[in-house]
């Protein structure tokens, strides 16, 4: 299998979070009662006409610029014709040969290696409704709330060389879009959707026949489906077979891809220019204005965090992987003395807490100021790191002042040397073998005694004091 190479291209649909739909003024709120966010226009009633929502255009331009695309000066919409019950006009207003933007790229890391993938185009279109099959008796019901929600389609060149790269690309794409604020990019709500084209070929020969994969509803599904498909195609070619040009669906339950039924197969979409929306010009000055309104994007933020806070590349990369987390870090770093310590806490305890409680970065329960206050307690020698970690869940759960919590619980560091000496002496008396080891030059065994003392004082003894006293009592200063 090692002499096979994989080629992957990805098409991503991103729902823009404009307040209203792309061609009418219906709201776009997710999860509303079926068919409550509709009007004659998005229902495609006879005689209605589309009018472009400029907020959707601006959001799409923003995303395209964040993906380093060239925004067209002239663009147009086209009709993509096909019949389906959730497509009320019998065509989708999309863009065919003059997309809004093209020739972009996106950089991301795979195993610490920087990769750059070219983005062929970004275009603007309307979403379709949702068919709910088998919802009532044998019937299919249709919910048109989503009909007309603005979408951008981001098409990559076939520059990806492995399922891991595809996943890393998508993760980065999601992050960049999230930074621009033009979408919620929630795969589980369908605001980020992905199709992939994948082929395999023997090293040195031409690219293989691409297979289109659909129904990739999570990052996990993307990786699994691509892994499955790469293996399937490789075996097929190795066995002397040929890969059919087809569209396959990922079957999550079965853990495999299967060809779409013939009726689901690709149509002749009969694209032609949308006569209801005349071609229009995009003023480069306006594009420059939109560019100016872009926030700091993840790569720039990562570089700045490295320079400004002295974070290692990896740490900076993880923290800037989410705009919410990055903002949180900056506020905590501003309130704390040592940003590196803040980064350690964020990447360690905080992420663990969020994971354990299934909280997103937009729902961090502890304020950055309280996190900084907790770190400051350690810095000021008022509690040990261990104590800090032990109270962290409560700090998170209550978002109260950590100092008050620590005081209430009587967890402040014991600075009374007499009390510590007592514990040190007891540890020495209880562990003659360890003491013997130390005396024989096994310096590292000293840590065990320190640990015993910390345990006896429930972590409240100042570890430095304990260290010093253990050495003193063993005469090894």
């Amino acid at each position, binding site marked *: 299998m090692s002499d096979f190479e994989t080629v992957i291209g990805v098409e991503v649909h991103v729902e823009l979070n404009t307040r209203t739909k792309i061609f009418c003024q219906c709201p776009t709120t997710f999860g509303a009662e079926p068919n409550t966010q509709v009007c*004659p226009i998005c229902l*495609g009633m*006879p*005689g209605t006409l589309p009018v472009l929502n400029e907020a959707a255009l601006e959001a799409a331009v923003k995303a395209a610029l964040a993906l380093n695309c060239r925004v067209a000066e002239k663009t147009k919409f086209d009709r993509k014709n096909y019949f389906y019950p959730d497509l009320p*006009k019998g065509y989708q207003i999309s863009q065919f040969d003059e997309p809004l933007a093209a020739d972009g790229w996106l950089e991301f890391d795979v195993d610490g290696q920087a990769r750059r993938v070219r983005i062929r185009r970004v275009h603007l279109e309307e979403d379709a409704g949702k068919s709910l099959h088998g919802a009532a008796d044998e019937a299919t019901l*249709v919910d048109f709330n989503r009909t007309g929600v603005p979408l951008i389609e981001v098409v990559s060149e076939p520059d990806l060389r492995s399922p891991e790269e595809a996943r890393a690309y998508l993760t980065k794409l999601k992050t960049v879009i999230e930074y621009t604020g033009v979408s919620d990019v929630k795969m589980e709500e369908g605001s980020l959707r992905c199709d992939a084209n994948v082929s395999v070929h023997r090293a040195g020969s031409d690219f293989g026949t691409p297979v289109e994969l659909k129904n990739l509803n999570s990052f996990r599904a993307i990786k699994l489906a691509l892994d499955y498909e790469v293996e399937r195609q490789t075996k097929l070619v190795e066995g002397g077979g040929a890969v059919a040009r087809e569209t396959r669906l990922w079957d999550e339950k079965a853990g495999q891809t299967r060809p779409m039924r013939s*009726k689901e197969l690709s149509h002749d979409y*009969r*694209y032609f220019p949308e*006569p209801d929306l005349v071609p229009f010009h995009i003023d480069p000055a306006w594009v420059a204005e939109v560019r100016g309104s872009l926030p700091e994007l993840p790569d720039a933020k990562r570089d700045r965090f490295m320079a400004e806070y002295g974070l290692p590349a990896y740490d900076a990369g993880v923290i800037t992987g989410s705009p919410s987390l990055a903002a949180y870090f900056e506020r905590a770093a501003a309130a704390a003395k040592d940003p590196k310590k803040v980064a350690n806490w964020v990447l360690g305890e905080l992420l663990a807490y969020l994971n354990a409680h299934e909280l997103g970065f937009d729902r961090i329960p502890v304020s950055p100021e309280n996190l900084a206050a907790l770190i400051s307690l350690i810095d000021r020698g008022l509690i040990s790191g261990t104590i800090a970690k032990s109270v962290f869940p409560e700090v998170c759960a209550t978002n109260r002042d950590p100092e008050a919590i620590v005081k209430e619980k009587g967890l402040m560091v014991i600075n009374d040397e007499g009390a510590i000496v007592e514990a040190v002496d007891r540890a020495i008396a209880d562990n003659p073998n360890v003491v013997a080891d130390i005396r024989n030059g096994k310096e590292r065994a000293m840590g065990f005694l320190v640990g015993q003392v910390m345990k006896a004082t429930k972590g409240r003894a100042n570890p430095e004091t304990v260290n010093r006293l253990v050495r003193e009592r063993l005469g090894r200063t």
Partner: protein
Amino acid sequence: MTEAITAHELRDRVKRGDISAEEATRAALDRIEAVDGRLRAFLTVTPEAALDQARAVDAARRRGDRLGPLAGVPVAVKDNFCTEGVRTTCGSRILENFVPPYSGTAVRRLAEAGAVIIGKTNMDEFAMGSSNENSGFYPARNPWDLDRVPGGSSGGSAAAVAAGEAVVAFGSDTGGSVRQPASFCGVVGLKPTYGLVSRFGLVAFASSLDQIGPLTLDVTDSALALQAVAGHDPLDSTSARYDPPDYLAAIEGDVKGLRIGIPREYFGEGTEPAVEAAVRKAIEVLVGLGAKAEECSLPHTDHALSAYYIIAPAECSANLARYDGVRYGLRAAGAEDLADMYAKTRAQGFGAEVQRRIMLGTYALSSGYYDAYYLKAQKVRTLVRQDFERAFAKYDVLVAPTSPTVAFKLGERAENPLAMYLADVCTIPVNLAGLPGLSIPCGDDGGLPIGLQLIGRALDEATLLRTAHAYERAVGFTPRLAPADPAAGKGGRA
């Protein structure tokens, strides 16, 4: 209404209180009652709603409110205008019971102008046709000779005005569908510049060609009716950002020094001698008023018809895709699955001509044929437009027949779609170029009206109306109602 009355006269009488809007409305409804059984110009008449609207106008007058420019005028609209709460069939079985939840911009503007909407007029199905014989229900007749067609597709609107069932009617013109029936029925029909009147609420046939226009008894009414509906609409992205002038003021004035071009291609083979004679006589009249006329050429005219029959069907194939039985309109019973439901619904709901055009358009847009058909047709369209641009560098108005013939008999061309398509040979290029065109009666052939077509620069409706008005005055035109009476027989107008 048994005597011809124009909208501007009626409106003035209503304002003076000589006649109430309700009386005027009842007169129109009575006329419908009397003649529409044989004329069949209407698909739906809405007497209650009309009388309510009329009474509201009368109440406003009694209160001393300012009355709109069409106050109390009975107006009919083609059945492809969406009217809230009133069924809108487009002349098609597939929308037989469709009741729109909204009214289009033109209908709303008419209501604001005080017009009384009395009903929805008959039409070729989805505005595809030149004789009204493609109505999914029954063909409208020509009120000058009930054995003849009123033209199409706005045949019902033209017949209704000619016969006095409505004082003003509106139609839509995609390839001649206002002008040609105006010509056949002896009324004034105006197709405004593409984009001057909002298409919002007009059920689409071919979106890049469709335009709403009025059918009236005289030119003054045409100006009045146009004024009521013209002007930018934010709901229509193709609507022109343009402040229309005062058309009523613009119709006054003479035609001295007006430069008239006579495109020789519009007098081609198939032009009836009586039509050509009447048109040339009308040109003489204009020349007599001080206009200068000379022959000119629009060399790509021959190809316009072919280009139109690619572009219009291509657009219609997409525009009519929504009639799938899923959400509204007809849904065929007994379908086995989704594809079968689509097929059965559309086979039962659409008539032969609509199906023919959907197939033509689908074919023309298909992968592998797009360049040869659709793209080439768009290039021809550009050439046709350039023909006009060159002509309008030299002339202010082009003058030609509206139709090469007078109204033909029902059934005469029904079996031959190509012959039917030729009925629009003089009007189609104007739609392709998006220009305004106006048809005004200029005589008759044995009692069958002949139409003179004036073609103008984009957004220069004013010059067309002024020229037509000058002609009207010069020939001492007085509107007469068509009898819509079988006893009138052939040459009913004589």
